[in-house]
């Protein structure tokens, strides 16, 4: 035995209490990691490659205002520009206006698109040729295609809402890249439908280098100053960020929630620790009598708090890392636990409430029933819970969160930096919960402790 094993044995001396504290930490930590994941997903979406020097040019007044198409040629003449492509938000409705059937639909130009979005490519080079040959052809992002089962050759109808026309599109290609969740159609097809040249909502511009971007931004804005349509030029990152800012102060909101959860879990853990130490006052005194110093006692108790929090924190991290990213796991395990409770608790309740009165066979029968419930009840409910979990794991389709939540949740995949936060919170809770009980135990006098009758 070492001090560490002694510490661990103390931590599991009351396994039920440790389990409950650990579980509450695990659940809270998983919640914190989910919130943090959502926050990161919103503020720093994955798949945005910051090393690509790309500029977004749009109307100064707002995104709902559009820019004349001749602006493209004027912008193109600036030095340091590799490529430029117009983008037009079509909006519209596919199937119905339910949230899960919504995805971005942009009008653009095939060749130029791939010149500017160098990280994306057609799944098959022949697809680009097909797009150039088909006026009502469209590309769908690989992730979007996976979610809705779009294939090359499919016909899609997008009803217009901003524009008074409906798009009748044919899927000619699949877009492959880090974050391809949109539908792209040809802007000249929209021009044909409307019978006029549309304006462009935004121009995406690829510069030849990062430093060049800083020069280009003011140049572009100056170029159209005091015209009827002034422009705002910004990096792609700050363009993306402006959408986040539109949500309001989401960062404050989520950070406030996380703080409250941390405080709550800290309080729960601290009260459990002080409960555990108060019960062992005599033990602490004995330790001191046989020569443990205040420092030793402090080390033991803080260590015990750490063990408990690491058990809970570890479970929480495990939950967040493996279970949360896959809706199927999440649902099946949740349903299993629910089944266990729904079967187990009423059985327990019945066994307690069965009357102990009566005489003869009636009384014996009741006693036997109670014994049977107490003998088989727990096993039965655990069995049912495990079966439900296994069954759901088999039966449920392997969807991702986007498909599962109808687009409400983009991803539940916890990033490494979020995991570090989880580890830090685990350590803080371990330390924070045990510091006070440890300090008071280290100052406990042997005599006072031995007199304690608890």
């Amino acid at each position, binding site marked *: 035995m070492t001090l560490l094993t002694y510490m661990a044995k103390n931590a599991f001396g009351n396994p039920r209490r440790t389990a409950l504290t650990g579980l509450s930490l695990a659940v809270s930590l998983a919640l914190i990691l989910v919130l943090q994941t959502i926050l990161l997903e919103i503020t720093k979406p994955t798949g945005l490659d910051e090393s690509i020097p790309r500029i977004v040019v749009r109307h100064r007044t707002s995104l*709902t205002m559009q820019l004349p198409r001749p602006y493209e040629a004027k912008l193109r003449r600036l030095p340091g520009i590799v490529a430029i492509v117009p983008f037009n938000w079509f909006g519209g409705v596919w199937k119905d206006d339910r949230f899960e059937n919504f995805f971005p639909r942009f009008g653009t130009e095939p060749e130029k698109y791939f010149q500017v979005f160098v990280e994306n490519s057609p799944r098959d080079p022949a697809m680009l040729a097909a797009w150039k040959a088909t006026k009502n052809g469209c590309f769908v992002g690989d992730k979007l295609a996976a979610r809705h089962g779009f294939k090359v050759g499919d016909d899609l109808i997008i009803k217009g*809402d901003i524009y008074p026309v409906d798009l009748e599109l044919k899927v000619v290609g699949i877009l492959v890249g880090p974050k391809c969740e949109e539908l792209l159609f040809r802007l000249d097809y929209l021009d044909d439908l409307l019978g006029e040249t549309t304006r462009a909502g935004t121009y995406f511009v690829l510069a030849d280098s990062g430093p060049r971007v800083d020069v280009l931004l003011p140049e572009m804005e100056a170029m159209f100053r005091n015209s009827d349509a002034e422009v705002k030029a910004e990096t792609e990152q700050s363009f993306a960020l402006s959408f986040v800012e539109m949500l309001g102060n989401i960062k404050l909101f989520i950070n406030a929630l996380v703080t409250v959860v941390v405080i709550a879990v800290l309080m*729960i853990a601290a009260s459990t620790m002080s*409960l555990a130490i108060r019960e062992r006052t005599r033990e602490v005194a004995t330790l001191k009598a046989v020569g443990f110093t205040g420092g030793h006692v402090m080390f033991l108790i803080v260590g015990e708090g750490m063990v408990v929090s690491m058990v809970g924190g570890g479970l929480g991290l495990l939950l967040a890392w493996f279970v949360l990213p896959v809706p199927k796991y999440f649902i099946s395990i949740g349903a299993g636990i629910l089944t266990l409770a729904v079967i187990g608790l009423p059985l327990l309740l019945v066994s307690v409430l069965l009357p*102990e009165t009566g005489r003869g066979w009636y009384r014996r029968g009741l006693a036997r029933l109670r014994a049977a419930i107490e003998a088989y009840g727990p096993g039965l409910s655990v069995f049912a819970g495990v079966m439900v979990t296994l069954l759901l794991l088999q039966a449920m389709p392997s969807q991702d969160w986007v498909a599962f939540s109808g687009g409400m949740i983009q991803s539940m995949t916890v990033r490494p930096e979020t995991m570090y936060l989880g580890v830090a919170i685990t350590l803080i809770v371990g330390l924070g919960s045990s510091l006070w009980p440890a300090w008071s135990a280290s100052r406990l006098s042997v005599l006072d402790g031995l007199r304690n009758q608890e």
Partner: protein
Amino acid sequence: MAIPLKYNLRHVARRWKTTSTTVLSIGLVVAVFVSVLSLANGLSQAFVASGDPLNVLVLRKGSTAETNSTVRRADYYSAKFLPGIATGSDGLPMVAVETINIASLAKLSGGSSNAAIRGISPASLTMRAGLTLTEGRMVAPGLNELLVGAGATTRFKNTKLGDTIRLVKSNWKVVGIFDASRSSFDSEFWGDVEQLNREFDRSMYSSMVLRAVSPEAVEMLINTVETTQKLSNLKAQREVAYYAEQTKSSAPIQFLGVMISVIMAVGATFAAMNAMYASVASRAWEIATLRVLGFSRGSILLSFSLEALAIGFLGGVIGGILALPINGVTTGTTNYSSFSEIAFAFQITPGLLVSGVVFASIIGVVGGFLPALQASRIPIIDGLKSGS
């Protein structure tokens, strides 16, 4: 025979150190529950308050929002003299054509945000019952003048009387401030519709609002628009219904609030369980004595469940008190159906507080259930031994 609740309450009070942390952790759950839902509440309220029951909103068929709707000048002339439309104090039919434009304006807190710039007709103001001009005057037709909603003045720069704001290509002067009683109009800027259309290069309106003479006339008016040949490209609906539909933009917040609260509640339930188990363990002897005195297992179960309920209830009350200061705090987000910022306030209602307390009580009872079961199952002999 039931054990008096007083007996448990004394125990709760005696173990106040352990109890208070449990109560507080439940309180925090409830505080989160109440504040997040009050956020959703405030946002919904902003939309609910926006419609007027006598108003009929006309949009283009197929449009889901004002922002993507178009109403032609000809439609206005066709609709103007439909039967059932009220007449204003000026003797003209109460019909307003409006446009909704978006402009990115500088915020007081730094940065910029999309503001809704509504082009209005003279009738627009009188048709919104909850809306009053608190400062300055109405905008004059044909001039670059703006009215600013009370909510917008707290969030955007240059919104005091006499300030000027640059929209697209020219400067606009603030001539009035209006209070729209916390509706979504409160976050808007209003100006003459024709003048704004010139500023934003548009030839058509976004929507048309008709004022019905009476509540009965509303349905009739909607039908008339549906059946009038000249208006076949338009769709009429109650203004109230249109804004009620937008309350669903608070659904994600509501969902998030409930989800977070439930997960936190699981953690708090475990805490309550720990506290109750400790309470039961330290009282095994008492429980056994009560059993000897003739109390049944059921009454022990009930007694401990009530104790847990009391802890939960207390947590609920404390949580409500913790959340109260947030009531009335204003914040903003984007209304995605108008693509512009909407200011709204956290709104705690008595009903929300009650549901917080109920939620907390459930946490208490669920957390206390297993320990109470255990208490009722302590064999009398073991319990008596533990006290000696």
